[in-house]
Every structure is written in C-alpha cells, then in structure tokens.
C-alpha cells in the first residue's frame, strides 16, 4: 500500500459519490439542470483520475499512449459541463468564449486521434520511473506534439470564460454573486496551474504524478459547495414556507369557520324574515289540536257519548301533532346545519319542499308561483338543506323584486345534458347591468334592510356543489337567476 494507490481511488470514489448525489437531486428536480451538469463534470474528473492511476502504474508505452489519447474525451465532457453549469446556474459568461473553449477542445480531441500518438506526444520514447512518496511510478517521456498548443488554448479559453463570468458576477454586487465571483476566480487559478503542471511533467522538467484530476478537484468542490448552498437555502425557504403554510391553513380554517357562521347567520336572518309565515304554519296544527281536544271534552261531557266521533278527533289530533313536529324538525335542520352533506337527490323534490315552506308567505304577499319542473332530470348530488336555503333565498328575492302589477314568479327545472339547471325568474324591474355580477359580492345589497349576504352565500353553497350560480336580465322584463348542479356520481360526503 502506498499514497498513490490510496489517494487516487479515494478521490475517484468521493467524486463519484458527489456526482451520484447531484444526479439524484436532478432526478427529483428536473428543472435544476445545474445538478446534472455538475454530475457530468464530476464523472469526467473521476474518469480522468482512473486513467491517471492506470497510466502511472502501466509499464507499456502503447497503453500509456492510448490512455493519453482517450484522456481528451473526458476533458471535452468536463469543458462542456462546466460551461453549461456557469451559463445555467450563474447566467454569466460570454457565449463566444464558451463556444471558443468548446470548439478548441473538440479540435484538440480530433487532433489527439489524428496527430502523433496523442495530443501530448508525437511519440513516447520511454517511461521514466519516478519515486514519489516512496512509490515508483511511470511517467511518459518523448517527443512533444506541437499541436498540444490547441489543448493549451482551449484551457486558456475556458479560464477566460470563467474569469469573465466571475467579473460579471462581481459587478452584480450582491453578497451571493460576489462570493461566487471569488470562488470562481480561484478556480481559474487552479485550472491554469493544472495546465502549467501538465506541461512541465510532459516536458520532463518535473518529477510528479499526473495531477489533472486533482487540479479539477477544487473546481468540483466549489461547484458542489454552490449547489449545496442552494439546497440548504431552499430547505430554509421550505421551512419558512411551511410555517407560513401552517399559518395560511389556519387562516383558511378560520375563514371556513367564519363562512359557516355567516351561512348560519344568513339562514337565521332568512328564517327571521320567514318567521311570520312559519309561525302561522305552526299555528294551524296547534289551532286544530286545541279545537279538536276541546270538542272531545264537550262530546265526553254529553250523556250519549259518540265514541266514533271521539276516536276521529283523537286521530286528527295525532295527525296535526305530527304535522307540527314536522315543521319544527324542518326548522331545526335549517338552523343546526353546519357542514356540507352531499347525497343523491331529486332537485324537483327540493323545489317542491321549499314551495311548501314558503306557501304561506307567498300567499300573504299575493305572489303566484308558476312552476315548470322537468321530469327527465337524473338524480343530482347535493345537500338538501343548503339547496333549500339557496332556493328560499332566490324565491324571496324574486318576491321582493316582483312589481305590483306582475306578482308572478317562475320556477323552471331542466336537464341540459350534463347538469341540472334551476331557474327562478321574476317580472320586476331587473338589475342594473353594472350590478349583475356585483350582487353576488358580500355586503352588496339593494334592499334597505338587506345585509347583502344572501346571494354571496348562495354562490358559495352552489360552488361547493361544483355548480354555477348566475343572474341575467330577461329580454322583456325582470331577472332570472340560474344555478346548475352536476349529476350524481356515486360520491357522498
């Protein structure tokens, strides 16, 4: 065991590990191409490091010559990778310098295969044995290839490109840019040193192992440092983002709660408006029950008790009691409603239910409802109580809008092929065209006592059903409100 057999493979291994790491990062984040270029550059350096090791231990001149010829292939790869890295990651460096460096490198590769034994030597005459760190290594010696100048030029072009990029970065002035400029300025120095070193070794002036791969190491580390700096930075950002996301989620949750409370409030307000008619609705069965019970008392006080009559009375009392309970149940459902419960339902049933609920009120306001309910509507997905609320709102609005002469409203349901559509129309004065979309905004109202929440909440409800709610002025008179509901898809919440 000796230094060289330990250091070179270790270097190759660590470079390969780095390459692998950044390759994985790139696989996970395809838009971060800098990681890919780094991995390619690192792979190139690892290859050179392997080739150097083999060359130093080889005893065959041909083998060394061949290795030195092929060495220029990973060199080209490294050139391209470094240039791409600088261009894509720093957005710096002149393009013509980049092209010059690359073209010279390609030219060098071609020359390496076409002139002499390789780009370094026209002919390797012998292998010089040198003792380094107590180990004997072989260094090729022979007639130098004059075309070697091309490789030298390509290295100078690359250095020029890097230095130019560093200057640009320095002028950008930010801390990050300046740090990068300094690091890459140093890289240029290492690259230059590597050229000088190789030239001296090849010329037989320096007894040293080949150090191309080692001189690229600082470059790689600098590149990797920059990239990892970025990874750490993005991790920090992610952490910050997560905190703000948590805050946002909480805010969204709060908003949802508020929205629910608002929906509830509007429902209560709506019920307040309806309370007169609901009180009446509840009063009817109560009145019937009282009269029936008192009639029964009187019948029972008579001498000849008509039991059939009393039995009928009791049955009627039971029925009216159930009717009252039904009304209370409906009220409670509307008041207690908290979350969306999507179930398959028939939209016409919902319309009829609501009409039952507002029957009294409409009558009181002398409004006539004309309904045209299509029987070819498939089952839709919806929350019955919330849809009742929407319809209730639209119907009450239509009543408010109905003019004194035209106290009629129209309710129309139909299937348009993909969705169920419900229309509620009045023959009122219509809505100003500027306001036709604004009426759905919260706190926008045209009524003196309105809160301006009804339609805003209706729209929220319909959107939660994956439907649409909109209004248009009719061609002749009044306004129509439409909402759509998708067909039942088997999904329930």
């Amino acid at each position: 065991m000796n230094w060289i057999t330990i250091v070179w493979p270790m270097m190759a291994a660590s470079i390969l590990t780095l390459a692998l790491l950044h390759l994985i990062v790139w696989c996970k984040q395809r838009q971060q191409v800098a990681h890919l270029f780094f991995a390619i550059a690192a792979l190139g350096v690892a290859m050179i490091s392997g080739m150097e090791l083999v060359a130093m231990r080889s005893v065959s001149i041909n083998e060394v010559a061949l290795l030195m010829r092929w060495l220029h292939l990973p060199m080209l790869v490294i050139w391209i990778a470094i240039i791409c890295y600088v261009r894509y990651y720093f957005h710096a460096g002149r393009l013509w310098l980049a092209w010059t460096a690359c073209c010279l490198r390609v030219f060098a590769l071609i020359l390496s295969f076409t002139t002499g034994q390789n780009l370094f030597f026209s002919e390797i005459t012998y292998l010089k044995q040198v003792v380094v760190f107590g180990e004997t290594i072989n260094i090729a010696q022979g007639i130098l290839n004059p075309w070697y100048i091309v490789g030298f030029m390509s290295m100078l072009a690359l250095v020029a490109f890097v230095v130019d990029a560093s200057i640009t970065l320095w002028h950008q002035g930010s801390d990050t840019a300046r740090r990068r400029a300094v690091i890459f300025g140093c890289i240029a120095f290492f690259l230059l040193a590597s050229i000088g070193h190789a030239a001296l070794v090849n010329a037989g002036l320096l007894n040293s192992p080949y150090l191309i791969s080692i001189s690229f190491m600082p470059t790689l580390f600098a590149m990797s440092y920059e990239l990892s700096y970025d990874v750490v930075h993005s991790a920090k950002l992610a952490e910050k983002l997560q905190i703000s996301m948590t805050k946002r989620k909480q805010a969204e949750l709060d908003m949802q709660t508020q929205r629910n409370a608002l929906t509830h409030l509007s429902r209560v307000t709506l019920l307040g408006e309806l309370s007169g008619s609901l009180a009446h609705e509840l009063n009817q069965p109560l009145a019937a029950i009282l009269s029936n019970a008192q009639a029964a008392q009187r019948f029972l006080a008579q001498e000849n008790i008509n039991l059939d009559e009393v039995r009928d009375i009791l049955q009627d009392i039971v029925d009216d009691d159930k009717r009252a309970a039904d009304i209370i149940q409906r009220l409670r459902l509307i008041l207690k409603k908290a979350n969306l419960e999507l179930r398959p339902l028939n939209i016409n049933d919902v319309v009829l239910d609501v009409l039952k609920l507002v029957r009294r009120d409409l009558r009181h306001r002398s409004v006539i409802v004309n309904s045209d309910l299509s029987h070819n509507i498939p089952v839709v997905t919806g929350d019955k109580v919330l849809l009742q609320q929407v319809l209730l709102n639209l119907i009450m609005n239509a009543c408010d809008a109905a003019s004194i002469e035209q106290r009629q409203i129209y309710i129309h349901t139909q299937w348009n092929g993909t969705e169920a559509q419900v229309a509620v129309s009045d023959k009122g004065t219509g809505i100003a065209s500027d306001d036709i979309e604004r009426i759905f905004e919260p706190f926008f109202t045209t009524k003196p006592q309105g809160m301006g929440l009804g339609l805003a909440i209706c729209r929220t409800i319909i959107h939660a059903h994956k439907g649409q709610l909109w209004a248009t002025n009719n061609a002749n008179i009044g306004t129509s409100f439409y909402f759509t509901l998708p067909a039942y898809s088997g999904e329930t919440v």
Partner: protein
Amino acid sequence: MTASMPTVFIVDDDASVLKAVARLLRSAGFKTALFSSAQQFLDEHDSNASGCLVLDVAMPKMNGLALQQILATQNSELPIIFLTGHGDIPMSVQAIKRGAVDFLTKPVNDSDLILAIQNAINSNQIARLARSKLSELQQRFATLTPREHEVLSHVVAGKKNKQIALNLGTVEKTIKVHRAHLMAKLKVQSLAELVKISERLGIISSLD
C-alpha cells in the same frame, strides 16, 4: 225567532282547522256549514240563512278582509268573527271598522269562540227581527193611496186638519176620513205612534 236554526258558516283554507272548529261548534250544539275558500262561500252559501260567519283572514286568492268587503256590498247582515294566526292591530282595526263583531287569534279557546258566536247570532237575530218589522211596516205603507200619502206627510209635519184641508184644497171632514183610514192601514192608535213609524220608514227625514 225564525223557524230555522241559525247556521255558523266557517271559511278556512286549512282543512284540519276547518274540521276541528266545526267539530267544536257541533259539540256546543251549533249547526255548521263548511267552506274551504272565500269563493266557495260566495258561490254556495244560503244568503237568507241566519247565523254568523267564522272567517279565516289569511287565505289564497281572496282573503277574509276581501270577502268582508264583498259581503258589505251585497248588504249581507251576517255578523263576521275573524280568526287569524297572526293578526296585527291595523288589520283588526280595519276589520272591526268594517263591522266585524270579533277578531280572535288562533289557537282559539272554545269558550271565547262560543261566546263570540252566541253574541253574533243574537245580534244577527235582533237585526233580522228589526228588519222583518220594518218590511212589515213598508208593506202596510205601500197600501196607502196617493191622497193618504199626502195627508200623512202633512200630519206628521204637525199640521192641523183644517190647515191640511186648506193646503190640499178640500174640506176638513174629508181629511178626517183619510186620516182615520191611514191610521187603520198602518195599525197605529195615536199621533205619537204614527210619527214614530214615519221616522222609521224615513218619511220625516225626507220632508226636511
């Protein structure tokens, strides 16, 4: 008292309330007639029958107050008791001003309703009695000859027979005969009675 028993007409669009109220009134011994709408009542009820009307205020198409107005234009004497779920003060004032005898809220207590109906029936019967007396008087009045009419108008104006004879260009004796005839036809014994029925028939006020 008329020969037939007074009828309580009940109009309410809520079937179960209609049935229950009718049942209560039957248990109290009233004769009832049931109608589920104002229109049905107008079309089908016996306008000559005595009794009273128990009327729901809030009904579709024609409400209780509208029916009251129509009955007023038809000179109906049927007293009206309004039943309402949510009667407000202006509404009840309006109804009472137009002659409703009572305005009760649902649910109504049996004794309140029965008392109101009894009062209404009584007032209806008194009114009917007064009307029948008046029509009897009118019938008697119709039997007078034109000359007797003239004499009557002068008599109730407080003129003496001699003055009347002078005014009508005849002798006092003739006037005396006319006077005796008309008093017999109108079945009155004294001048005071004659003045009273003339007032009721509207003869005196027409002289003013």
